[in-house]
């Protein structure tokens, strides 16, 4: 286990050291202390290492992540896991706005609540939120799965494409062109796997699936007011 004091080492030196790890590194476990809400902790990692951040993080923790597993023992600021490609990020506390935005792959788990715009423009990432999510979540979501054990705020899935949205609690309102969908056996399977991987104690059957009504895919002047 490598322990790094972020305050002593500085952000750039920390990220450089993490970036220097290759696929066959034998330094696979890292701990970052004194996070103190700093921005851009452990961004751009590309190695199968496990990084544990003690404390809460600021903007963009774990952004662009590939392969690595990042655990945040605290809450995460805006843009946690933004544009992540693969790997896993687990936030023990809450996440601020646009968690997992534009993510292409991997798994992002928020054990508390996520704020507004969770999974905005997601492109293949899987996001599991144990608590609630804020307004405009999964806006223009293209693919991947967003699983919410609690409630969703206003305008869920506005203008979404083929992402699957699973919500166990209430949805305050659905966004344009987002509708409730049938839960088929394959969705139960997907959900079961995600809940298990996210350590979530919930039954797939308790969720409702939402997705695109596919009316806004191609421009039709009759739909102009819906955009």
């Amino acid at each position, binding site marked *: 286990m490598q322990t790094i004091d972020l305050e002593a080492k500085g952000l750039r030196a920390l990220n450089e050291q993490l970036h220097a790890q290759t696929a066959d590194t034998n330094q696979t476990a890292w701990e970052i202390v004194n996070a103190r809400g700093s921005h851009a902790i452990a961004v751009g990692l590309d190695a199968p290492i496990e990084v544990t951040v003690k404390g*809460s993080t*600021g903007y963009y923790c774990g952004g662009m992540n590939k392969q690595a597993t990042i655990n945040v023992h605290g*809450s995460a*600021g805006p843009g946690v896991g933004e544009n992540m490609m693969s790997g896993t990020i687990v936030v023990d506390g*809450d996440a*601020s706005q646009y968690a997992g935005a534009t993510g292409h792959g991997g798994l992002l788990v928020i054990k508390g609540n996520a704020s*507004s715009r969770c999974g905005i423009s997601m492109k293949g990432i899987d996001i599991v939120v144990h608590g609630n999510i804020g307004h405009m979540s999964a806006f223009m979501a293209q693919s991947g799965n967003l699983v919410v054990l609690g409630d969703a705020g206003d305008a869920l899935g506005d203008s979404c494409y083929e992402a699957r949205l699973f919500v166990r609690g209430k949805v305050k309102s659905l966004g344009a062109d987002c509708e409730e969908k049938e839960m088929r056996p394959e969705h139960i399977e997907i959900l079961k796997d995600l809940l298990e991987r996210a350590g979530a104690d919930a039954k797939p059957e308790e969720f409702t699936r939402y997705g695109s009504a596919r009316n806004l895919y191609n421009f039709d002047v009759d739909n102009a007011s819906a955009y």
Partner: protein
Amino acid sequence: MCGIVGLFLKDKSLEPKLGEMLTDMLVTMTDRGPDSAGIAIYGNGSDEGAKITVQSDNADKDFASIGDELGHAIGANVKAERNDTHAVLSMPADKIAHAREILSEIRPDVRVMSAGSSLEIYKEVGLPKDVAARFHVEKMSGTHGIGHTRMATESAVTTMGAHPFNTGSDQCLVHNGSLSNHNSLRRKLRRNGILIQTENDTEVGAAYLTWKMQNGATLGEALESSLDDLDGFFTFVVGTKDGFGVVRDPIACKPAVMAETDQYVAFGSEYRALVNLPGIETARVWEPEPATVYFWSHSDDPTKIEKAA
């Protein structure tokens, strides 16, 4: 981008350290606003009853005999205490309006930063640490305070463009965001007789609240109607005589985080601003909801006015 910090103390034993804690929070937000900074501090009430905080770019000349001259003109005892480019003028509460009129005649270049019984506002252009140091903010005590670090987007970097803005007696406003309908609203407010001195968007927001309250609205009602009448992005923190309030626009893209313990309620644009507060590790930390007005007050229980977005 701008930075906001706020601290409302529940534990009286922390009051002597208010300035020190706020300064630390303010300086942490330098990245969000390095061009100017300001602080509104609610300290002990003035012995005379009320006070006006004034600013001058030519303080040596303007403040030399300001207390005596003003006191003579309004027929009351005026105590003047200079603090760098600012001075606090204490006087009986019923003389405030008259004193402001006289000031504009005898010291036309002196700007009024705030008026009230316990509020003092200090703001200047420069790095937050330099601004805090020149006014010795770390030595100030008080019950609650608000600070702002500015990165100007809508208007010039000047003292008058810095926050906080005084909105009414003992009330002030700081803002992170940008208002897009400030020009039309400024014209409308000026037609209604409201004094607006700069091209700054936040000053219009502050003037809007003043105007609403002059027409009978409570601060809570004024903030709620701001959600309808102000177009743009905003996280507002407002200071009142006995507390502070927070409201974010319905889109809520400007960051805000709050922390509460038995000792205090704190606001920061980012969690970073809160990390040195006592007991932050075990504090309740959360993000204020969009389009929701929150208040903490020494005289009442916390209130939350929700409004449909």
